[in-house]
């Protein structure tokens, strides 16, 4: 469950990225967040991950008010959320395999569990052949898919993907969206930030459209279409 209640985010330089934003995403939902560049989409993901603090309003995730999270509780909270960052954030000195393994090692997974899980997620994102490669030697789309593999390897209850298809050709992008939908069908709440208009139109999911820091639409359907309001 993700609940934004009158959330405002003003960055230190005065930019208001979110202005009185409210929405509620239930457990098990699949939601797109769309909007033009600079609209405030990534700011939403940053607030959910506690990378930034809201300057107004409250963010509740699974019943936890993020303002109340203590420093030492933070890692355990973050393990509940798989995230694909817009800028990937892969560890540059580790291979693809070790990058994904790291997300498991932080929660003390055994080598056996790691050996079982990683080939599985790598094949899901179609990168089995790149396991030993460093992120620096991958294309943008490949890095993006590694980030997705890392985000889903622990089966987190919430998966957030910030532009997971931004660097992909339409066919691969569609596969990745299909994958996200599969993950969602297994019960994971999925929040996808995207610019891919055609995919959003095709998938007929709930869409939250943001413009200049405010929600201008929240409903089912592609954002070019008429939609049923919530």
């Amino acid at each position, binding site marked *: 469950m993700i609940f934004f209640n009158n959330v405002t985010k003003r960055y230190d330089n005065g930019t208001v990225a979110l202005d009185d934003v409210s929405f509620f995403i239930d457990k098990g939902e699949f939601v797109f967040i769309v909007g033009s560049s600079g609209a405030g989409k990534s700011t939403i993901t940053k607030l959910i991950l506690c990378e930034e603090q809201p300057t107004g309003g409250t963010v509740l995730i699974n019943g936890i008010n993020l303002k109340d999270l203590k420093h030492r509780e933070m890692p355990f909270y973050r*393990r509940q959320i798989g995230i694909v960052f817009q800028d990937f*954030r892969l560890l540059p000195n580790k291979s693809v395999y070790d990058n994904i393994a*790291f997300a498991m090692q932080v929660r003390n997974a055994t080598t056996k569990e790691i050996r079982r899980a990683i080939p599985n997620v790598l094949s899901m994102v179609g990168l089995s052949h790149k396991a030993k490669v460093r992120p620096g030697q991958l294309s943008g789309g490949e890095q993006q898919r590694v980030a997705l593999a890392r985000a889903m390897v622990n089966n987190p209850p919430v998966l957030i993907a910030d532009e997971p298809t931004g660097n992909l050709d339409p066919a691969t992008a569609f596969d990745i969206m299909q994958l996200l939908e599969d993950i969602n069908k297994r019960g994971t709440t999925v929040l996808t930030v995207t610019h891919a208009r055609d995919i959003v139109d095709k998938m007929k999911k709930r869409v939250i459209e943001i413009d200049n820091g405010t929600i201008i639409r929240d409903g089912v359907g592609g954002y070019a279409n008429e939609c049923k309001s919530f």
Partner: protein
Amino acid sequence: MSVRAFKFFVVEGTKSFFKNGLMSVASVVTVSMCLILCGLYVIFSMNLNYAAKQVETNYEIQLFIEEGTSDTRIADIGKELNGIDNVNTVVFVSKDQAFNQWKEGFKDNLAILEGLEDDNPLRDSFKITLHDLKQTESTMSQVNNIQGVAYVKNNKDSIDKLVDLTGKIKNASFYFMVFFALISVFIISNTIRITVFARRREVNIMKFVGATDWFIRWPFVIEGILVGLIGAVISVLIVSQSYGYFLGTTGVLINSTIQLYEVAAVISPLVISLAGMGIIIGALGSAMSLRRHLYV
């Protein structure tokens, strides 16, 4: 910490040590320089203690016996001296022995002593050494009370001054060492801070995939310990080699009066203290410089 996690941290720390080649070398050099000074201090203070001990145990007090004391009384005085707790050794020096020793000193100028042979001006005496110099005062009053003792020759004042001086030197050099160690920790943590700064993005990423502070910290700490240990090995080698060289060139000079420790005798205290300090400096330095980056 599980064995698996421990292995992971050691592997990560070691890898990162070699990956940061140049910074690791810089850190090792800084740590070594600090530890070399610490090592010199260890050797210096060990030898100072050793010398003070030697001065103490070799310190003799001479008691002169009154003229005309009978031989049996002299023997009794010897027994009484032995009966005093703080007295360590008692040696009787007859006036003839004393005169012969004196003659040795004037070997080249025997004429001076002419005529004195038959009328020996020297006295019978006892030379004693003490267990504990600090109790010299009370022991002296006991000795003075023995019948037949004319007077006591005692260099207590100069010994006191020496012991006092060694204490002061040791204190001063200790404060100097502490001061220097603090400066080194500062320099080292700055050196490590540069590596940490270069890797702050990595640290940041680790935080966002749910790593705890200690999970991130341990590899850095182990890397720091590695730096400290290598620095310790280098400084033990340099300090012990230089000390050996020092003993070889100047040892003879000092040998006649006061003995210094052999190289072999200082090795294990050196290894223990320098390895200990190296580990502490390295681990503290890296743990401290990480702090700022963990709060995201």
